[in-house]
Every structure is written in C-alpha cells, then in structure tokens.
C-alpha cells in the first residue's frame, strides 16, 4: 500500500498540471480567435453605425416611421374594404391614398437628413443580374494625377489604416473594373458607403 502511495500522488499531480495546460491553451486560443474577429471588423469590433452618426435634425428612431407604417397599413386596409364598394367610393379612396402618398413624400422631403440613406448604404446588397449594373457603375480607370498625389493640404496626423478585405483571405477576381471578392461561397464587390469603403454582397462574377 505504501509502495503505491507515491506513484498515485505523482500521477494525480501530472494529470492536474496537464488539465491546467490544456485549459490555458484553450483560453489562449479563444482569446486569439476573439482578437482575430475584432481585427476583422471596424473600430476593433465596435459598431460605428447609429442614429447619432448622421448628425441630422431628424431621426428614424422616432415614432415617425411607425406612424408611417400604420398610415400605410390603414391605407391598405381601407383600400381592401373599398374595393367591394361602389366606383365613386373607390375614386374617393384613390384620392385619399394619393393624399397619404403625398404626405409620405412630404415627410421624406422634410426629414431628408434622418439617415435613411445611411441605413440603405449600410445594408445594401446585390442580387443576381446586377453584376452588369455594378460594372456599368464603375467607369474607366482614373487618369494619373496631374496635381500632387495627396488631396489634403496636410499629412495625416496618424497613418491611415489599410482597407481590410471582407474576410481573412478572400479570393479576388478582377472582372473589368470591378474586383469581386469571394469569402466561402459568398461574393462581394467594393462600394463607397457612409463611412468609406464597404463590401456589398453581390452576384458571382460573370462566367464564374
């Protein structure tokens, strides 16, 4: 029994230290993974998007959009009921819908800086058949600069960071003036968004 005591103690110690090492490795790996994920998104993984980013005097986060939706829903319901009524009533409904539509347009005209476009820019995507649109949107290569290469009067206070790809190691396929990037099975093209370069999900490049 005494002969077995020290081997058991040693084996237990070894097992505990092994488990500890494995746990530390796992923790380190998870940390590294978090770091990689953070490096792959803007501002170290923090969102730059939000209602205050627009600096507008109107905000989409107010009750207004909900009211608009309600107004639209009401209009649609009314239109459905109205269909079963006389032609004169339908005519009145049409003019009412038109008035609602006008009000909607007026709202958008008055609240043009509420950041609606920012939201579109942040979530815009392409579907099949729009590669041609993307290609047509991208014109000939720019001419070489005839003026100083920097467009800014002063050098940057801090070196500008490089633009990142949509994923760690995308497959890039230039087609004409458009560069397609493939991440897994998803294709992206570059576009100019509210905060600079964005990758917009797109259809595969022609012929792929």
């Amino acid at each position, binding site marked *: 029994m005494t002969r077995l005591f020290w081997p058991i103690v040693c084996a237990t110690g070894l097992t505990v230290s092994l488990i500890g090492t494995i746990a530390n490795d796992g923790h380190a790996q998870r940390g590294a993974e978090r770091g990689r994920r953070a490096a792959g998104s803007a501002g170290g993984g923090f969102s730059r998007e939000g209602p205050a980013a627009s600096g507008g005097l109107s905000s989409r986060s107010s009750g207004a959009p909900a009211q608009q939706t309600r107004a639209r829903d009401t209009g649609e319901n009314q239109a459905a009921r109205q269909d079963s009524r006389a032609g004169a009533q339908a005519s009145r409904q049409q003019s009412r819908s038109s008035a609602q539509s006008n009000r909607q347009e007026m709202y958008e005209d008055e609240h043009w800086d509420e950041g609606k476009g920012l939201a579109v820019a942040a979530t815009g*995507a392409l579907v099949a058949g729009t590669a041609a649109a993307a290609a047509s949107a991208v014109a000939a290569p720019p001419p*070489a600069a005839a003026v100083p290469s920097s467009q800014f009067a002063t050098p940057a206070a801090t070196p*500008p960071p490089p633009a990142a790809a949509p*994923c760690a190691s995308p497959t890039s396929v230039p087609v004409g003036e458009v560069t397609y990037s493939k991440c897994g099975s998803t294709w992206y093209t570059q576009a100019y968004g509210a*905060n600079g370069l964005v990758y917009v999900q797109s259809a595969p490049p022609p012929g792929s």
Partner: protein
Amino acid sequence: MRRQTSWKVWVAAFLCAAFVLTVGSSDAQTPGQSPSAARALLLRMADLIGKTPRLSVTVHSAYDTVQASGQKVEWNEIRTLTLSRPDRLRMEAEKSSGARTLVVFDGKEISAFDESSRAYARAAQPGGVDDTLVYFVRDLGMRLPLAALFLSRAAIELDGRVRSVEYVEKTGILGSPAHHLIGRTDSVNFQVWISDGEQPLPQRIVLTYPAARGQPEFRAQFSAWNLTARPADSLFTFTPPANTSKIPFATALAQAAPRPGGASAKKGVK
C-alpha cells in the same frame, strides 16, 4: 396723523410696484430671454450661414454609438468645410482612426475619396449646393452632419422643423460670449451655443436622439469660422490620385437591385 401715514403707505406701494414693473419689463426686453426671442436668435444664426456666399469652418465632432452590450462608444472626427455658393463645396474629414476622406462638389459632379482605401466614387451633381446636399445625404446615403445648416434656406428649414426653443443662459464658458439655447424638432432634442454680437454663429451644437436606444448624442464644436473666405477654384477640383480605383456608391448598387430577403454589407477596417 393717521391720514398722513396712509398717504405715505400708498406712495411707497406705488413706487414699489413701479420698480417691480420696470425691472420686469427690462428683463423681458433682454435679447434671447423669451422663447420667441430665442427662436428669432436661432433663425438669425441660420439666416446668416445660409445667406453667406462663401465660408469655411472647422468642426470637431463626436457621436455616440450604442453597442449591442448597451455600452456607448464615442467616435471623433474633424471636418473642414469650405462652401462657395451657388454650387461648390469641399469637405475634408479625418476620423479618430486616422482615416481621411474628401468630398468635393465641383458644380458638375460629386466626388467622394477615401484615402486609406485609395478609392473614390463619383455621381452627377443635381444642381446647386442645396439640391446637392439633400441628394448627397438622402439619396447617396453619405454622412454630412448638420447639413441642414449649410443650405441657403437654412432658416426656413429650421423654422419648419423646430417645434420649441428656450433660452437657457448667456455664457462665456466656451471662450467668448454666447447664448445657450435648447430646443426640439419632432425627433431630436438640441442645444446650441450662439455667439453674442453681430455675427450670431454657432460655437457648439449638441443633438440628442431621445427615441433611440441609449439616447445617443452628436456633439459639434465649431472653430475658425471665416465668412469672408476667398477659396481658389482649384480647391473644388478633384483629380483622382494615381493608383486609385473608382467604385460605385453603395446606395447606387442597392437601388440598382434591392435584395428581397435582407441584405448585408461588410465594412472595411478604418
């Protein structure tokens, strides 16, 4: 004796009432004290900016974004805006990350350049500065904070959208005398500090978005106002530097083909 006392009491009461009325009246006439005077001051500020044919200003701004965790992150940037009505504008911006962008309205085209990506986008300019600012913000989905202030019709725009204005105080805390106002539009609460004197220009603006989660703020500190700027024409010319690529505006792609089942876009790291 009793009659004499009564007479003195009446005179004293009259003098007191006259004093109170005089002081009250002089307070009411102090510029900016009443809501209507505060609104008038706000509109004078907007009118001055809107009617100035050429100007330049530097804006240190910051805005909050509320993260999924509920924590706020403040993003800072410096913008220098140069405006020459009717149709020229240049805006240089540097973000806290060091990324720099440039926007130029040259009278015919809108150019947006991202220095770190070495990419630029271009679109036809729909008209003068007013139409182009609206098109740039609403239709192209680009950022130009406080764009409404730089419209030639800024006063009309503010008058139509501001629901209430109140005068807070006169202060010199920002370096020079200013009137501190607070107000509301339908969806935004704002504070503005307007310079006292003949040129009622904004010194600082704070916008709060009360209906948004976490009530984020946008803050702007104005400096180097120049209402007699004489910008050279070359300032409103954008020539793409070598080795840059032209890319479409994201909204142009989205509008070309809206995705039925949702959409996604990945941002470049800045």
